[in-house]
């Protein structure tokens, strides 16, 4: 594989890793606070739809982004009400949210655009344009580094850079601030937080809403940056892969970045090298496409060391038994 192809592959990996990364960090906030969320998928999807359709109708991608985030937060709120306020089963609530998104997006888009569950193509103004970093053009000539800077690092949409910036931000928030301390505590032992005079409910809702915001950005990225419009089921399991990445990363920001890049690379490989041959036998394209899912299982199987989730994760906090 020559250098250009490698750059191309990595470039594509970064694009495909971005939604995973955003979703993964979203999950990180929620699960660190003790709320499991398999509804990431649904939140991504709903946001992808709303950001695309609002971006189309207003012709302003930023409004689209806001709409996407808002819709995703509404779903996050729903999950919060179900699993925090009413102490429902967090898994079931997540499953419901995924279905709700899958159905709603198509039903609503049909009644808005009647394009068979799709939004119209977005014009330039309705999309996040790829931004060229300073000196990218000038430096392009420089061997090795030139192409790396020009083709790999430069020329992504603002959301990509945002996603990568959120990683250190999250780390700082988690380990250096009061909010982070309380967030981690509420995921480990809510009773301790409660007796310390902090409202468990408020902490958890905050976390769930942050999760909603990040999923919202992920969805907007899918429909207004990676592609030019919404199509049904466009999240294509990314929410679940993000969850696996989160477990892989043992709920830690920097590792989450690594995990997501890995999955992004896999996805890119899957679509770029469809008919690769290993030791003479050609690997079926279906295998390449299933690879991320297979790897997810392998990772969950704990072949990467045991991952201990936040202790209070998954259980509603009940004072009175």
């Amino acid at each position, binding site marked *: 594989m020559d250098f250009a192809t490698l750059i191309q592959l990595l470039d594509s990996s970064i694009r495909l890793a971005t939604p995973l990364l955003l979703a993964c960090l979203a999950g990180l906030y929620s699960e660190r606070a003790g709320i499991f969320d398999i509804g990431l998928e649904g939140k991504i999807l709903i946001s992808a739809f709303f950001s695309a359709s609002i971006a189309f109708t207003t012709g302003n991608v930023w409004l689209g982004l806001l709409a996407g985030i808002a819709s995703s937060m509404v779903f996050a709120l729903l999950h919060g009400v179900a699993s925090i306020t009413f102490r429902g089963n967090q898994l079931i609530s997540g499953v419901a949210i995924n279905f709700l998104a899958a159905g709603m997006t198509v039903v609503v888009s049909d009644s808005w655009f009647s394009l*068979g569950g799709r939004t119209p193509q977005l014009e330039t103004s309705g999309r996040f344009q790829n931004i060229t970093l300073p000196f990218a053009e000038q430096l392009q000539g420089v061997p090795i580094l030139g192409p790396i800077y020009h083709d790999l690092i430069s020329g992504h949409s603002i959301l990509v850079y945002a996603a990568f910036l959120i990683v250190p931000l999250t780390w700082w928030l988690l380990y250096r601030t009061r909010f982070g301390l309380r967030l981690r505590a509420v995921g480990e032992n809510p009773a301790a937080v409660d007796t310390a005079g902090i409202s468990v409910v408020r902490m958890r809702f905050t976390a769930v809403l942050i999760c909603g915001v990040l999923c919202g950005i992920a969805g907007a990225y899918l429909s207004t940056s990676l592609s*030019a419009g919404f*199509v049904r089921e466009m999240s294509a399991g990314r929410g679940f892969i993000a969850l696996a990445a989160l477990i892989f990363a043992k709920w830690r920001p920097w590792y989450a970045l690594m995990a997501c890049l890995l999955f992004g690379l896999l996805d*890119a490989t899957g*679509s770029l090298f469809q008919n690769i041959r290993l030791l003479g036998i050609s690997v079926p394209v279906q295998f390449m496409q299933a690879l991320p899912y297979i790897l997810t299982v392998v990772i969950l199987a704990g072949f990467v060391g045991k991952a201990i989730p936040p202790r209070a994760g998954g259980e509603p906090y009940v004072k009175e038994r």
Partner: protein
Amino acid sequence: DLGGKFDRSFNEAAFNGAEQWAEETGGSYREIELQSDAQREQAMRRLAEAGANPVVMAGFSQASSLEVVAPDYPDTTFVIIDGVVDAPNVRSVIFSEHEGSYLVGMLAGLASETGTVGFVGGMDIPLISRFGCGYAQGVRAVNPDAVIIQNMTGTTPAAWNDPVRGGELTRAQVAQGADVVFAAAGGTGLGVLQTAEDEGILSIGVDSNQNYLHPGSVLTSMLKRVDVAVYDAFSTPVDEIETGIHIFGLAEDGVGYALDENNADLITEDMIAQVDAARAAIIAGEISVHNYTEDGMCPVE
């Protein structure tokens, strides 16, 4: 077919045909959009029971269901597009996409400066290979040592509807030097055309005339006049519809390439001349374009 109505391509063409007829005659028609294979039979029966006649089915994957359904409704006439069903009350319409693809292939070969062109197929099925193979032959005809990069989007019906992947594939092909990309991939094609414009290269649409989607970027569109076929089916009185297999080729104007104000300045007189010559030659039988589905292989790689 799967991929959703208004894919700006195949299904939309069928729909337009119906619309056109409805407007002209004021007649009314019912449609069912299918999400999953297994609903087909129910949908067909539903239409037949409702007394719809004729029932037009657009899409190869309906054939096997129709085989079972058709006999149950002898006095309903069925029209299937892209598929062959051998029944007395079924009219099977086949397009020779390889011929149309050949022409756009030539245009691609002529328009390409890098000498590298791309093809993005939808679902990996022989039908699409027929597009790809005809296209490849066309390219080679004008540029014997052109490089042709072929990718299929996927192997499930979802492949008709995955612009994201379509875009990624296109970027990949661009990175490998392609400067013209032919998308025969239903809804996925939209992602291809979009990316082509973003990357500043030329693209070729399919089925319907997609030139208007990205004026100045879409070189042309390989027309597949599904709309004509549907229109015919509706407009001819049911009892006069002749069943059996009908091939829509260049000769019948069933396939062709689109030329309009949107791509006028992309295509030179000289190109038009060459392509029309080839067209005539194919109709006359002087050039025979190999049909992939006949033997499942392609002479050119």
